[in-house]
């Protein structure tokens, strides 16, 4: 059981910044995210795109914003459960929340802050008969352990960065690797595209474009895949088929937690603290809705700040709290680090 003061669901900008604001109040956070890395949409969809409306940052790449936030929250040593989806919520006899992920990891805290953006990123699946039958039985949508593919025959489908990167990576591991894409153009980083070309020219990989998978076959697990390549049908013996068509967010299990939902977002009390209809559960950032809601990162930061103040009052109902300015008080990390403004020197001039 992983214990903290606040369980944050979602490692996007709002969730990450909440760690900082909570840390100033000496509250310890643990973040759960279904993606294998922090950053949410900024990391998964547009890490290389610039953002222009972060206060004081005339221009910052989404990926760099995530790195800066990770640096900013480092002193407050947040815990992370990455690559797992928050599945269910319960309350224990002390009134604390228990959140269990799809992999069974349990987390306990008196406060839950949902910062889930547009939801859990789930893989886009190709439309193929019997696909479900082979899921985790020859068909994988996310590569968790590349060693699984050692000396196996693997076929990757897709035209983006992840399809290219994994093809390159697995070309040294798999017995045979085939990359197919619906068209001949790829939209990955230039050096990845060039590397693929090199691997193809040296017969290290097989590349079929434009090509599409149209049939899967196999008795107990996937054995044969049929592709259509330039109007010709091809039969390929295979151990693994990895379709990498990107991830799309879905609200997922949170929708069944008894929270008031409106237009796929969680209703919160925006005039006070962004708390949901369940006391102790807050929703911040793109995942919430209230009159006048704007889905902006900068609004998520504000919401995270107010949420933490309210969370503090719930955890310490009898303690008086006053807003402290970091310029005055500095930052004392849970990791023993301390940052503070330089003391002014007073000296007489004679």
């Amino acid at each position: 059981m992983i214990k903290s003061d606040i369980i944050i669901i979602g490692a996007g900008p709002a969730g990450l910044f909440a760690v900082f604001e909570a840390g100033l109040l000496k509250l310890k956070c643990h973040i759960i995210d279904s993606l294998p890395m922090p950053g949410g949409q900024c990391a998964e969809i547009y890490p290389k795109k610039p953002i222009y409306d972060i206060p004081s940052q005339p221009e910052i790449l989404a990926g760099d914003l995530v790195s800066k936030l990770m640096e900013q929250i480092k002193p407050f040593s947040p815990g992370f459960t990455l690559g797992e989806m928050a599945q269910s919520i319960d309350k224990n006899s002390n009134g604390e929340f228990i959140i269990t992920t799809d992999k069974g990891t349990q987390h306990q805290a008196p406060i839950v802050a949902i910062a889930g953006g547009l939801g859990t990123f789930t893989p886009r699946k190709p439309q193929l008969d019997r696909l479900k039958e082979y899921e985790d039985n020859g068909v994988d949508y996310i590569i968790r352990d590349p060693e699984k593919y050692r000396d196996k025959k693997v076929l990757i489908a897709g035209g983006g960065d992840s399809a290219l990167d994994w093809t390159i990576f697995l070309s040294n591991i798999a017995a045979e690797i085939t990359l197919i894409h619906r068209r001949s153009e790829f939209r990955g980083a230039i050096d990845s595209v060039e590397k693929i070309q090199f691997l193809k020219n040296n017969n290290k990989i097989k590349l079929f474009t434009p090509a599409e998978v149209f049939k899967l076959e196999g008795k107990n697990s996937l054995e044969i895949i049929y592709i259509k390549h330039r109007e010709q049908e091809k039969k390929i013996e295979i151990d693994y088929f990895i379709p990498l068509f990107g991830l799309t967010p879905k609200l997922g299990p949170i929708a069944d937690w008894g929270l008031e939902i409106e237009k796929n977002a969680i209703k919160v009390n925006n005039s006070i603290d962004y708390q949901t209809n369940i006391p102790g559960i807050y929703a911040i950032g793109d995942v919430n809705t209230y009159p006048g809601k704007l889905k902006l990162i900068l609004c998520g930061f504000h919401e995270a700040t107010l949420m933490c103040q309210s969370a503090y009052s719930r955890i310490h109902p009898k303690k008086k709290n006053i807003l402290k300015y970091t310029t005055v008080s500095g930052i004392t990390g849970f990791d023993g680090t301390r940052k503070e403004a330089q003391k002014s020197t007073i000296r007489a001039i004679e």
Partner: protein
Amino acid sequence: MEKDVNIIITDRQGKDHEISAPTDMSMNIMEVCKVYDLAVEGICGGMAMCASCQCYILSNHELPNKTPDEEAMLSEALYVKSNSRLSCQIKIEKKLEGLRIELAPD
């Protein structure tokens, strides 16, 4: 309004919505759908990076050519047909008067 154009959008339940879209607000079709509360996510905000605003063009209007980004996204998206477009890549302008589109499955 003189600056508005009328567009007919068929939602995922097959219901038609005749909506009026402003030509002077730098809006695209995805944004207009959101303004009218039609179920279009527009997850990436209009960067042609998610295909959640995919639609099928039903009328014969002349539309701007697809950018390489839009072409690439449509090559990865599901339910793509020959008349598929990402609605975030189509700006509202006068010549779209009477345009008919259908939202692609999500």
